[in-house]
């Protein structure tokens, strides 16, 4: 959820329209997650199968081919669907219960 103060009915565009492009970025869906993909860096070969498999585009990468590397999952948006763990040929992503990470 966005941390912005919720507006009153006179302050929002009529008809529930969203008048700002790209605003979905403000809607942090990471708190929907009940399982967390834990990235095991020692097993990861940076094969680049997981980043395009993520439906929320939340596995960032850096560099260009052939020296491209993935980075840590963006947990602001990761919903914990587990597709990355499923597609990983090296078992370098493990799904763990989110409750174990709550501080």
């Amino acid at each position, binding site marked *: 959820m966005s941390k912005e103060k919720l507006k009153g009915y006179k302050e929002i*565009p009529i*008809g529930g*329209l969203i008048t700002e492009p790209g605003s979905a970025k403000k809607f942090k869906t990471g708190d929907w997650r009940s399982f967390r993909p834990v990235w095991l860096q020692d097993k990861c070969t940076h094969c680049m199968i997981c980043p395009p498999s993520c439906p929320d585009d939340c596995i960032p990468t850096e560099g260009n081919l052939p020296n491209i590397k993935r980075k840590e999952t963006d947990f602001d948006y990761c919903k914990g669907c587990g597709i990355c763990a499923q597609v990983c040929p090296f078992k370098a992503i493990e799904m763990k219960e989110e409750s174990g990470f709550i501080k």
Partner: protein
Amino acid sequence: MAKIKALTGAEASAEAMRQINPDVCAAFPITPQTPVMQKFAEFVADGIVKSEFICVESEHSAMSACVGSSAAGARTMTATSSAGLALMWEILGIASGLRLPIVMTIVNRALSAPINIHCDHSDSMGARDQGWVQIYSENAQESYENTLLAVRLAEKVLLPVMVCQDGFITSHGVENVAVYDDNKVKSFVGELKPYKPLLNVDDPVTYGPLQLTDYYFETKRQQEPAMEEAKKAYQAIGKELKKITGNDYGYFEEYQLKDAKAAIVVLNSTAGTTKAVIDKLRQKGKKVGLLKIKLFRPFPYEEVGRALKNISSIAVLDRSESFGANAPVFGEIKNALYDAKSKAKLHSCIFGLGGRNIYEKDIEDLFSKLLTNKLKGKEYIGVR
């Protein structure tokens, strides 16, 4: 100058659409609405209008196509009846919730079951809380003029508008209709200046996003002031239209009401029959009158209350039922009179379901019962 044409109510609505020349029309045929779109499709085929006519596969699709086209920024119109309106139900609330100024002719017809094609108001009355403005028309002339007014009203307040007329009685009956000068009407209707059209790539917007507990309530809260605004705009736009037609566009019409002791409240074609009876009874010195509702949503409570508060005996005629509750028009009149602190004897009368005819004699009997205080409770006129 107005041209007098012999038109059915359905053709009169199509004639208004010819002059409006909407960008898009998406419709599905249903009795008794069919001749509206049949006539309009002829105008399209003959190149008299430039409208894009979309033949869809159902009314659910018709209203969905209208929602898309209106959001895209096109002036959009359609028409339906009965089961067609029922099938549109889900999308009716989307059109009003997204604040799309769609104008729709409703040719009133009974809802199933039993299946029936004739006139009553259960279709549009059932849709009265869907956030649409509703205007009711007594005859072909009013259907034509109300349609012109509706386009301006819808686009001014960004609410969809239904213009209703009685199935068969009005839609298929030929009357003399004064059709006003094309250029004058076109300049009255003007060009649509769409609010945040989807096709404007320089100002990208999203229509219809999910709003849960955070913003749904606020978006619905906006529809109420829009209705209040519609009430004001209806009169202002009516005054402008009067310059062309010479006719008044009140929230309702008062006929011999000022000194009346007994009054009938009714909408659509039965108001015409009631006027004929009033003329007859007035000649015999009976103080009887009529209040014909034109604008039903938003409902003009205060004004109706003022107009009726000194009348001692009132019958409200409804051509639809609200089973287990006050009939739709009756309930509103009762509300208005409570606020006006009226002490009138108020009666609910149900008539004409499924097209059962109501005759001058029935209305004459009703007036005589009203004048002699012989009405008890809820009446059903013409039922066995």
